[in-house]
């Protein structure tokens, strides 16, 4: 492919790409995101290809692997174009049926269509599946439509139009920054700082050179939105960065991506190589005299390396520990020069805003939180996966419509939002609109968009202890309140979980949480106490039950529960004896059994296998 020398070249090439592909030609797009790959997407793709070849249809019907659709729970998922028929839970054994239906009369394969669990009805199109119906996929919309390894696919869906627009009109940098400001876009990496304001601050700094960085460290356990976007649509991020570099006067950009994401790194590298070949990156882009290159840096993967000053230190080859701000990166960043760090999704939002206008973007969302947010919905919820929703959607819609409710008819207890240091929001706040301000008011935060749903079988003290254990591990240990505070909080919570807590402990917890929040050096320590503070705020009675009555109301904390067998219910089936790892269950077959509490390690294995439900926890 010859280099595109001008915007005219780009548009002509786009036309060629579009004409190349007959919109009516059937195409089977199979999700090859991480979730679907794990559930066998590549077997499906191989199966489809084999069947097509067998029938000699390989040139009549295309097969494409795309990025993540978000509905990983029901993977592998795929779409049959041009009709847009959505199949879920596809296996390689279904390949023949799918190919047959695509060639003969296009009657969908009934059993692969999504079935509404409530009504039992089959749903034909992706957007009619309740999981997707309330979503607004501004950033992820193209994930299921393009092959991330082909720049032609990105061009076909209007890719690089925003870049052509600003370069073609020679839009001055400050106008672009103004447009981003007007859109109300806020950083998607956690803190929600207004992107336009940050960009304007960089432009106001006369020092050169200037750097831009894309933060793709994504260290939160369970979060995979940045990864999915890098894997599924890397060009959207690159386009955002090129526009940003042009607006900000940067000539070098970095993408800091964790090394544990090999597929994301690979797709990013492929995309960068294509962009360079096409002349979208490099010297004198489109003959405008603007030069820009992007380098990839792979991070070792500590959670704290996602913090911007630690990330900069890591790129520079220093230990990935945060340094105090100010000075902020826009003042003194990478190699001491003015630097902009934005999250993957922040960068990917930029072309959308340039294409469709700040007014359009600002019309989505709430008064102070604009646009869409991507959440990873996990935990005790029917539909786990990635969802992109307009800001301001309520927790109720998230959990009961998109998420499809709580499994096994259990009650919702709390939702932990914002990653490991997010707060736990109780079920009583189910109508809370999700935006930056409301979440902060409720004691939580937007964070990276992790959303863990908890049901009635969750002990909130244990949850606080669990997150504190994680944060204690991930604290870099540089500053005293965070290093020491996470250890102390974890120790106290462990004591309470063991029924050895004192009522004074609650005051100490609150005090330590406060001082960590106020004095820690970086965001990790400043937010680390959120799980403790919110569980204390909304579930204090649970703490008191552990302390005063030595009782764990959710029956989770091992030191406070006893397993026993109700003799009148036990039918002596012996099933529990087989699974007990410590031989703690005594009793002859057909006679009622007993648990030796001295040997019992409270693993709950017997509870799981007991058919007549004779095992009691008290």
């Amino acid at each position, binding site marked *: 492919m010859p280099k595109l020398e001008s915007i005219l070249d780009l548009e002509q090439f786009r036309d060629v790409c579009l004409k190349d592909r007959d919109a009516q030609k059937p195409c089977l797009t199979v999700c090859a995101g991480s979730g679907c790959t794990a559930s066998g997407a590549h077997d499906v793709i191989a199966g489809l290809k084999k069947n097509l070849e067998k029938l000699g249809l390989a040139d009549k019907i295309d097969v494409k692997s795309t990025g993540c659709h978000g509905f990983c729970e029901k993977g592998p998922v795929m779409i049959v174009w041009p009709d847009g028929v959505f199949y879920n839970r596809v296996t390689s054994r279904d390949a023949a049926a799918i190919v047959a239906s695509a060639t003969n009369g296009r009657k969908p394969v009934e059993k692969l269509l999504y079935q509404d669990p409530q009504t039992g009805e089959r749903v034909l199109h992706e957007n009619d599946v309740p999981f997707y119906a309330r979503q607004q996929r501004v950033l992820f919309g193209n994930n299921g439509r393009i092959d991330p390894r082909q720049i032609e696919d990105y061009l076909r869906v209007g890719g690089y139009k925003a870049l052509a627009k600003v370069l073609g009109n020679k839009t001055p940098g400050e106008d672009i920054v103004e447009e981003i400001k007007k859109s109300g876009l806020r950083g998607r990496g956690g803190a929600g700082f207004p992107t336009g304001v940050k960009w304007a601050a960089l432009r106001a700094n006369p020092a050169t050179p200037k750097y831009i960085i894309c933060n793709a460290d994504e260290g939160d356990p369970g979060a995979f939105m940045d990864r999915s976007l890098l894997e599924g649509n890397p060009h959207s991020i690159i386009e955002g960065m090129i526009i940003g570099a042009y607006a900000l006067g940067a000539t070098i950009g970095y993408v800091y991506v964790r090394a544990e994401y090999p597929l994301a790194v690979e797709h990013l590298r492929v995309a960068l190589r294509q962009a360079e070949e096409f002349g979208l990156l490099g010297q004198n882009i489109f003959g405008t005299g603007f030069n820009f290159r992007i380098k990839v840096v792979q991070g070792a993967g500590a959670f704290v390396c996602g913090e911007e000053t630690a990330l900069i230190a890591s790129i520079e080859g220093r230990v990935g520990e945060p340094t105090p701000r100010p000075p902020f990166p826009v003042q003194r960043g990478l190699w001491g020069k003015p630097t902009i760090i934005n999250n993957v999704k922040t960068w990917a939002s930029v072309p959308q805003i340039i294409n469709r206008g700040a007014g359009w973007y600002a019309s989505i969302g709430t008064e102070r939180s604009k646009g869409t947010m991507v959440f990873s919905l996990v935990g005790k919820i029917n539909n786990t996966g990635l969802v992109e929703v307009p800001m301001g959607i309520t927790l109720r819609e998230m959990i009961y419509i998109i998420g499809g409710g709580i499994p096994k008819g259990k009650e919702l207890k709390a939702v932990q939002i914002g990653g490991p240091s997010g707060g736990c929001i109780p079920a009583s706040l189910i109508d809370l609109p999700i935006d930056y301000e409301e979440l902060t008011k409720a004691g939580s935060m937007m964070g990276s968009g992790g959303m863990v749903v908890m049901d009635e079988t969750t002990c909130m003290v244990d949850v606080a202890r669990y997150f504190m254990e994680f944060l204690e*591990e991930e604290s870099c240990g540089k500053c005293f309140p965070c290093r020491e505070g996470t250890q102390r909080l974890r120790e106290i919570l462990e004591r309470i979980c063991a029924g050895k807590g004192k009522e004074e402990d609650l005051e100490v917890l609150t005090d330590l949480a406060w001082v960590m929040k106020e004095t820690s050096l970086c965001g990790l320590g400043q937010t680390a106490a959120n799980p403790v503070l919110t569980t204390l705020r909304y579930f204090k009675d649970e703490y008191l039950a552990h302390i005063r009555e030595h009782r764990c109301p959710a029956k989770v904390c091992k030191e406070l529960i006893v397993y026993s067998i109700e003799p009148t219910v036990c039918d002596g089936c012996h099933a529990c004896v087989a699974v007990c790892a410590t031989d703690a269950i005594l009793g002859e077959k057909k006679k009622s059994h007993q648990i030796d509490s001295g040997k019992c390690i409270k693993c709950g294995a017997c509870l799981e296998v007991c058919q007549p439900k004779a095992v009691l926890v008290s």
Partner: protein
Amino acid sequence: MAKLKINGIDLEVERGTSVLEAARFLGIPIPTLCHDDGLTPYGACRLCVVEVGSANGNGRTKMLSACTLPAEDGLIVQTHSAKVEKARRLLLEMYVATCPQSKTIQDLASKYGMRQERLAPKHDNCIQCGLCVRMCEEQMMAGAIGFAGRGAKRRVSRPFDMTSSLCRQCGACMYICPVCELRCHGASAESTLCNGCLNFATVCMQSYDDAMCFLDPCHACEIGGPLRSDVPVKLSAVKSAAQEK
């Protein structure tokens, strides 16, 4: 120049001055554990936090470490507000529990009116203030020690946990450490002279031509080194002794 306000006092300082230095210039004491004039500010002990607002900040303030905060136009700084004092008291409560044996920490705690300790004592031998690491690197030009590990496992260490050839055992790290001060147990019953603190060998003069540091007191030098005023030492004599070895 940067114009700022500290505790209601307007002042103008050179750009690049830290708020800690500016406050000290006014005679306002701010407690520190990881700061030393002459070493790069580190911002890890967090004891120097001050409440910072700005003229157009609508009264909103942030808690920032004064040692790392560059003085800038329009900053409004409170070094001893109720919030700051509460934070320092709680930090000190944690410090005392972590290293109750440190006199520096005990003194600060009493100064801050700490009357109760609710946390279990730990007797750690390091608060990771990083003074020793910076001292070794920036003043002794040795770089023989550094931090290793993360979180609770982070500690000051030497490469491969062996005495590094870079270390010339100058003792500067111990000199500056606020924690590993030896507790004085006094003289033993048999003797009135203790000399417990003088537990170094004179290594410096055996390997180098000139005195490598001017620590006061350098334990090694106190025994037989060139800085001891009552014992005249010929450098050449020490050198030739070293060469003979």
